[in-house]
């Protein structure tokens, strides 16, 4: 079995086989149909010929009696490719004709029917018997007139047609097998290449891709879409890798700090008050860890898209009002201004808590990082507007902003600017905003408000 067995099990082989059988059958049918119709046509032509010969010969007989008939038959039977003629007397003896040894039983039939017989020729090869169709006509005086036509040509034609079709079928089968062999082998080869690549992928090396021949056939299309899928999987895997690295970093750093502080306290000893202080700071660190963990979980849950069932129709203008109401005193206490300018209504479908948290994170960020350099006061502007099919909520500050090169990183999943990493807080604020936007089918962009950062949350309008 082995290679041949695999070749036989291919779809190409099965298809070739089906086509072969179907076309062979069709060829056979066509051949038989043509042969049969041709034979029938020839048969009826022969009968007609015989009839017209008999008619003309009987005319000769009526006009000139037996003598004229005999001379006419004699004349006709000498022509090349002549029909068969025979005039016999009542005892069955041949008077004139070109047929030797006619079966006497035939001459007995004089009812006008055509009959198939075998005969021998007087001219040429006398040992051979030929097939013929004959008709016997009784003449007065016991004479019999036989007119016939050789039909071996029809037989030859028939065998010629069948012979040709036999060759056709043999050639068809042969080319079928050859084409199946080559097509099957090339298909098998490509499939095996794919299988080999997927085995390599399964063993963990995600960088491999399926070969694309550039022939735009179905295999190329398949390979292209599989490659696209692999790109996506690889991106996800890389993302996962980054995520776990970041989680490790984000959680391990404070854990390490926590442990070091406790260890240091234990080593140094001291008064109850020292321990109390150490415990309080450890708890603070633990709370921070919990915050980071919560943020990570929340983002992960949103990335998995599992909060969608809590969506309800909302007016984003109300959400803006409420968040401004919550933050206004804080910004004012920090010596800044918080302003809101919004169109109404801003209808959308979403989750109020998540959208509020996204805005709250943006405002928190503006308070934390958006303080302008040099005595100027902090100014945070919230805006809501309808932008085509989208609703755009923006939070703009007048601080230093984020350099263009760093903006994408600040937004990317778990991507954080090193500056933010070292500061207090989960540091996942913008990532969470981006996750909220994605969950709502929207997006976040960071822009420059010269000076300051302009964070825009685009959400689909309801």
């Amino acid at each position, binding site marked *: 079995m082995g290679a041949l067995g695999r070749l036989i099990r291919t779809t190409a082989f099965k298809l070739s086989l089906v086509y072969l059988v179907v076309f062979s059958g069709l060829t056979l049918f066509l051949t038989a149909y043509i042969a049969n119709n041709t034979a029938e046509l020839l048969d009826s032509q022969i009968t007609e010929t015989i009839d017209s010969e008999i008619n003309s010969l009987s005319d000769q007989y009526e006009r000139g009696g037996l003598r004229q008939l005999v001379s006419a038959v004699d004349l006709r039977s000498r022509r090349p490719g002549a029909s068969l003629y025979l005039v016999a007397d009542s005892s069955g003896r041949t008077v004139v004709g070109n047929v030797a040894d006619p079966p006497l039983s035939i001459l007995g039939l004089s009812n006008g029917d055509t009959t198939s017989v075998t005969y021998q020729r007087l001219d040429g090869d006398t040992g051979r018997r030929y097939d013929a169709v004959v008709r016997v006509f009784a003449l007065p005086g016991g004479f019999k007139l036989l007119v016939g036509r050789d039909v071996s040509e029809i037989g030859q034609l028939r065998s010629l047609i069948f012979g040709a079709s036999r060759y056709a079928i043999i050639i068809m089968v042969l080319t079928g097998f050859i084409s199946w062999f080559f097509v099957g082998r090339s298909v098998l080869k490509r499939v095996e290449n794919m299988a080999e690549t997927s085995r390599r992928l399964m063993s963990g090396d995600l960088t491999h891709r399926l070969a694309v021949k550039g022939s735009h056939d179905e295999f190329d299309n398949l390979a292209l879409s599989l490659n696209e899928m692999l790109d996506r999987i690889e991106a996800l895997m890389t993302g996962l890798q980054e995520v776990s690295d970041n989680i490790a970093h984000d959680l391990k750093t404070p854990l390490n700090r926590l442990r070091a502080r406790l260890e240091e306290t234990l080593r140094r000893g001291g008064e109850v008050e020292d321990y109390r202080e150490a415990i309080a700071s450890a708890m603070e660190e*633990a*709370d921070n860890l*919990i*915050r980071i963990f*919560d943020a990570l*979980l*929340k983002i992960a*849950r949103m990335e998995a898209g*599992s*909060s969608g*069932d*809590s969506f309800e129709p909302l007016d984003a203008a109300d959400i803006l009002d*409420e968040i401004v*109401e*919550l*933050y206004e*005193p*804080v910004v004012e*206490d920090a010596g800044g201004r918080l302003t809101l300018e919004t169109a109404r209504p801003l209808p959308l479908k979403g*989750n109020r*808590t*998540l959208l*509020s*948290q996204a805005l*709250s*994170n943006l*405002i*928190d960020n503006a*308070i*934390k990082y958006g303080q302008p350099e040099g005595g100027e006061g902090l100014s945070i502007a919230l805006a809501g507007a309808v932008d085509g099919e989208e609703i755009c909520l923006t939070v703009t500050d007048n601080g230093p902003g984020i350099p263009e090169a760093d903006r994408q990183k600040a937004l990317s999943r778990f991507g954080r600017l090193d500056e933010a990493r070292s500061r207090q*807080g*989960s540091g996942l*604020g913008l990532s969470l905003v981006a996750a909220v936007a994605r969950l709502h089918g929207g997006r976040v962009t960071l822009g420059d408000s010269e000076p300051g950062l302009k964070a825009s949350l685009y959400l689909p309008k309801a």
Partner: protein
Amino acid sequence: MRILVIEDDSEAAAYLVKALDEVGHVAEHAADGEAGAFMAEEGVFDVLIVDRMLPKRDGLSIIEDMRHRGDHTPVLVLSALGQVDDRVRGLRAGGDDYLTKPYAFTELLARVEALARRNRPADVETTYRVGDLVLDRLSHTVTRADTEIPLQPREFRLLEYLMRNAGQVVTRTMLLENVWDYHFDPQTNVIDVHVSRLRGKIDKGFDKPLLHTVRGAGYMIREAGPERGGEAAWARSGG
């Protein structure tokens, strides 16, 4: 107060029971869902603390059963799942409040005490009084020493919530949830600023402050200073 703690983590439960006992409550512990459901049926508890994921029986189903029986004992649901949907599910099952693990004991205590008062007359009273501070829920007016204090609507709701829980610690998260209906923690101290503004309006110019900060826990409105706040309770129970 008699409190039933249904929690499968025995160490956490032991700590919780001890801490609740030390602040003057009587706490009992059930280690799995079936035992918890059985004890809850006695109907002698003022508040139930129920973990969501329990061996033998799901925490939420215990609450659903209680509500079917017409038992309206307040329930605080504890859960490691803290997402928006989980919260909604917990409350829909009949829980009265939802607290995500890990939690601070002060937060839990404040919530349990707030729950216990939920079914008391405070809810139907039309005026709240703390010392000479009077809040009229019908006319939406606040007076201190017979002088009307004009408040913003949100400040009014903030004060209303604090006064309904007068003498009890109210945490920042509780305020965010109950006054603003926000179920997330802003990274900035937004609540502190709101409370300090309110304090500026109701306490400024008066000899006796009513709105107190309880360090490490939250706020409390009462005539005298906070003698038993979250911090004190923490220090005693934490040992």
